[in-house]
């Protein structure tokens, strides 16, 4: 039992670091690890994934919000779409074909991968036309970039498409239990043209709130198995505190380079699931 606990905790530290850096919940890394290497049943793995998402968000966002890299107003505004989507998604389980959703999700990620690749050398977005809605909702902001050694002011464009992508992100997390963070980062980076660090840090703030929409149901259904969830929670929390330390030392372009293979991996995985392997 100690071996299992320590191994799961160790893998969770890695998932927490990556999740905190990339604005993902770590479920992308945790679920395959638990089911493939530790033979954890899929429901218990899904429960551990929800715990991992909230743990990543709690640990990482605490630092990012403090450093003002996470934009709280932007996050609260966009969680209107993600939580509503997640609630509706949870109701559509069994009603909507998940195969179809996997394919759409894969295509969306494929498109985003191209956009990310094209922006690979761009440190900060330029020539962003601020959306009047962004001013209305106070979504523009500033953060201090330690690597660039200066304050970075930014404004948001594409508020409506961004909001729509957030709704889809919520829907997929409610329906498929995955991909929530990935789509959130892409929505902010690609559609709203925010700096990459702001996108991943704000996603970190949002994923916990989105996941909380389904967390209670997971708990009452018994998906959260204490023996599995405990080492995951501890490992991920530790990792998610280390992640922000790394982020403050890397460039936006580096972050994007780490992000791209993850997007491609998940896109391929979703496509295989959608096409029924």
């Amino acid at each position, binding site marked *: 039992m100690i071996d299992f606990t320590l191994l799961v905790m160790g893998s969770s530290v890695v998932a927490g670091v990556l999740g905190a850096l990339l604005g993902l919940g770590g479920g992308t890394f945790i679920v395959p690890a638990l089911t493939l290497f530790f033979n954890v049943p899929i429901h218990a793995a899904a429960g551990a994934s929800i715990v991992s998402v909230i743990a990543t*968000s709690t640990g990482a966002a605490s630092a990012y919000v403090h450093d*003002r890299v996470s934009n709280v107003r932007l996050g609260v505004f966009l969680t209107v779409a993600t939580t509503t989507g997640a609630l509706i998604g949870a109701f559509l389980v069994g009603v909507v074909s998940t195969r179809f959703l996997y394919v759409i999700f894969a295509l969306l990620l494929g498109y985003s991968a191209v956009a990310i690749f094209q922006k690979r050398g761009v440190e900060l977005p330029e020539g962003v036309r601020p959306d009047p809605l962004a001013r209305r909702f106070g979504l523009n902001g500033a953060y201090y970039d330690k690597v660039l050694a200066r304050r970075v002011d930014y404004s948001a464009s594409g508020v409506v498409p961004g909001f729509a992508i957030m709704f889809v992100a919520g829907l997929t997390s409610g329906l498929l239990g995955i991909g929530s963070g990935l789509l959130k980062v892409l929505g902010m980076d690609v559609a709203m043209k925010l700096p990459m660090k702001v996108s991943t840090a704000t996603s970190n703030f949002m994923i916990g709130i989105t996941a909380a929409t389904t967390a209670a149901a997971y708990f009452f259904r018994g998906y959260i198995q204490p023996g599995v969830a405990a080492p995951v929670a501890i490992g991920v929390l530790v990792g998610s505190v280390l992640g922000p330390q790394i982020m403050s030392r890397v460039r936006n372009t580096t972050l994007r380079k780490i992000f791209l293979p993850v997007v491609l991996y998940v896109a391929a995985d979703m496509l295989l699931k959608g096409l029924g392997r």
Partner: protein
Amino acid sequence: LDAERGEPAQVPERDDSVLDEAISKSLRVGGIASIAIVAAGLVLLILAGHGGYGGAYPHDFATVAAGLRLFKPFAVIDAGLIILLFTPYLVVAVAVWFFGRHGDRLYLAVSSFVLFVLCLSAALGHVGG
């Protein structure tokens, strides 16, 4: 003033540092409380060699509360996990409180809506479960 002149929205129009500090603090408190309790439960689990429920584990509040009085390892772990799972609720509630106190009606409505969806989902999740 710059905003009045139609400058690009470079200057944040409001000071949200109090909000950021309050949210960051609630996340830290939730995280530390949960990791401490989960870790204590994990130590109990390793010492006892079992969770205290045979092959099963609790998944409702009443069983967790009852097990907590007997220091059953799984009940202690679950108590920590419940704190973690409900930390986002605390965060949104803090936002609602902040916006309400500062008379920001737009964001009071936005954050209250999010809190409402969260509470609705918890209620439905309980019924559904």
